C-alpha cells in the first residue's frame, strides 16, 4: 500500500518536472526575443549568451524615432478594425437564416460555405491579385477589408453554431408580437449573443494582427505597411547594406508585437481561450 503511494507521488513529481521542461521549451523563444532586443548587432551575431553583456536601448530608439512606427500601427489597427467589423456584421447576418429559417436551397448554400472554407486562400491569391490590380486596389488595405464585408465562411459557420443554440421559441414569440425578421435579429439575437460577437471579434483581431501572407502580396509601398510587413522590411536591414540583417532590431520589433497578444491573454483570456475552444469543438 505504501509503495503504491510513493509510486504515485513519484509519478506526480515526474509529471511536474515534465511540465516545467515543456514550459521552458515553449517559452524560451519569447525570452530569446526579448533579451535579444537589448543586444547590439555585433553582440547578437557573435555570442549565443542569453543575456546581453550590457543592454542597449538603441533598437527601441530606432523603432520609435527613426521609423514610421506610428504609421504601421495605424495601418494594422485600421486593418484589424475594418476586417473585424465587416466580418462580424456580414457573417452574423448570413448565419441567421442558416441557423433559424427554412428556405429552399439552404442546404446547398451551407454546403458551399463549408466547401469554400476548405479552399486555402493562397490558391486563389494570384487571380485575386490580378483582379484587385485591375480595379486599382493594390497597395491599399482594400483587398483585405472589402472581402470581410461579404462574410467569411469560417465565421458564418461559427455564428451558425451559436445561433442554433438559442431556442427558436423566442423567434416565434417575437413574430407573434409583430416583430420582423430584421427586428428579431437586431433586438433579440444580437443582445443574446454578445459574448459570441466578442469571441469571434477577438479571434479575428488576433488573426489580422499576425497576418503576413495577404499584406505581402497586396502592399508595395511604405504608406500601407502593416507591422508584420515592417518586420520583414523596415526593421530588417541595416541602412545602406541590404545583406546585413539587423537582428536585434527585428527582435525589438517582435517583442513589441508580442506584447498586445500577451496582455490580451492575461486580461481577456476569457474571450481568447474560451473562443478558441468553442471554435474547434463545435466542428
Amino acid at each position, binding site marked *: 500500500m505504501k509503495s503504491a503511494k510513493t509510486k504515485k507521488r513519484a*509519478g506526480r513529481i515526474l*509529471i511536474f518536472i*515534465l*511540465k516545467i521542461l*515543456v*514550459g521552458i521549451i*515553449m*517559452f524560451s*523563444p*519569447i525570452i*530569446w*526575443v526579448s533579451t535579444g532586443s537589448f543586444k547590439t548587432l555585433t553582440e*547578437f551575431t*557573435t555570442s*549565443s549568451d*542569453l543575456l546581453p553583456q550590457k543592454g542597449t536601448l538603441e533598437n527601441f530608439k530606432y523603432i520609435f524615432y527613426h521609423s514610421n512606427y506610428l504609421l504601421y500601427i495605424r495601418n494594422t489597427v485600421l486593418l484589424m478594425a475594418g476586417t473585424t467589423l465587416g466580418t462580424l456584421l*456580414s457573417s452574423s*447576418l*448570413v448565419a441567421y*437564416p442558416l441557423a433559424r*429559417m427554412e428556405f429552399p436551397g439552404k442546404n446547398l448554400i451551407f454546403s458551399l460555405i*463549408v*466547401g*469554400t472554407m*476548405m*479552399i*486555402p*486562400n*493562397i*490558391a*486563389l491569391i*494570384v*487571380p*485575386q*491579385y*490580378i*483582379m484587385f490590380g485591375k480595379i486599382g486596389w493594390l497597395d491599399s488595405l482594400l483587398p483585405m477589408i472589402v472581402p470581410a464585408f*461579404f*462574410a467569411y465562411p469560417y465565421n*458564418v459557420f461559427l455564428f451558425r453554431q451559436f445561433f442554433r443554440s438559442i431556442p427558436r421559441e423566442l423567434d416565434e414569440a417575437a413574430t407573434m408580437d409583430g416583430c420582423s425578421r*430584421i427586428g428579431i435579429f437586431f433586438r433579440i439575437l444580437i443582445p443574446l449573443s454578445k459574448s459570441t460577437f466578442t469571441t469571434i471579434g477577438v479571434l479575428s483581431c488576433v488573426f489580422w*494582427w*499576425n497576418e*503576413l*501572407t495577404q499584406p505581402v502580396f497586396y502592399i508595395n509601398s511604405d504608406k500601407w505597411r502593416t507591422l*508584420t510587413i515592417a*518586420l520583414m522590411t523596415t526593421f530588417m536591414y541595416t541602412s545602406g547594406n541590404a545583406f546585413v540583417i539587423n*537582428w536585434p532590431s*527585428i527582435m525589438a*520589433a*517582435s517583442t513589441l508585437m*508580442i506584447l498586445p*497578444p*500577451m496582455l490580451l*491573454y492575461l486580461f481577456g483570456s476569457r474571450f481568447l*481561450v474560451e473562443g*478558441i*475552444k468553442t*471554435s474547434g469543438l463545435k*466542428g
Partner: protein
Amino acid sequence: MYKVSSKAAKKRLTNHLTAYAFCAPWMIGFVCFTLFPTIFLFAVSLTNRKLNGISKYIGLANYINMFQSSTFWNSLWVTLFFTIVMMIVTTIWAVVMALLLNYRQKLNGLFQFCYFLPSVIPTVALAYTFRTIFGKEAGLLNGIISAMTGKNAMVNWLYDSRTVYVALFFITLFTYNTGQMMLIFRSGLNDVPRELYEACNIDGASPFQKFFKITLPMISPIVLFNAIMGCISALNGSFALLYPLTGENGDPNGMSQVLSLLIYKEAFSNMKVGYACAMSVVLFLIACCFGIGIFAISKKIVYYEN
C-alpha cells in the same frame, strides 16, 4: 379558403426572400471573391500572362512545362510531406501538452500561459526568432549544446539537409495551430466522464492503459477533426512561416520550397503569372482532396455528437 392559402403562400414567399436577403452578402462575396477568381485562375493558367499584364493563349503549355520541371515535382512532394508531417507532429504535441495540463497540479495557470503564448506570436516574428535560435555561429541551441557537452557545437540546423526537417517541424510546434488544438483538446479531455477513470482505478490500470483505453477513444473524434482542419491551415499558413524562414527558394536545396512559395516566386520574382496560376490550380486540387476528406469524416463526427 382560397384567400387564406394565397396569403400563406405569400407569407412563405416573403419569408424565403427575407432569408435570401440575409444571405446576400455571402452570395455577392462568393461570386466576386471565390467563384470568379476560381474561373479566372483556370483561364489564366492557359495563358503566358506576365506580371505586366501582357498575355497570350498558349493552351496547356504551362501544365506541360510544369510536369516536366523537377522544381515543381520537388515542391509538390515537399508540400504533401510538410503538410502531413506537420499535422501529425503538431497534433501529437498538442495532445501531450493538453494531457500534462489536465493533470491538476499547482501553477497550472502559469503553465498554460507558457504553453499557449508562443502560438499568438506573429508567425514572421517566430520565423526570425528561430532563424537565430537555430543559427550556426551564434545560435541559442548551439550555445546550449556547447555548454552542456563542453564541445563547440557548430550545427547548421536550417541549412544542413540532415537537420533541416527536424528544425522545421520543431518550429511548427510553436504555431497558432498547435496552441489552438491544445486548448480544444483540453476542454475535450474535461468532458471525458470522471467515472470511467474511477472504474479503471479500481481495476488497477496503469496510466498508459488508461490513456489508450479511455482517453484516446473518447477524444479521438475531436483530434481527427482538428488534425484535418490543421492540414488546410498548414497549406494556407506555411507561406507565412516559411517565406521569412527559408526564403522563396526554400533553402537548402529546395527542401522547404512548398507550393505557395514557388507560386510567389514564379509570379513575383520571375513574373510568370500564367505559370504560377497553373501551379495554383494544383494547389487548389490538393485542397479539394483534403476538403473531401474532412467532409467524409465530419459526417461521422456529427453522428457521434448527436
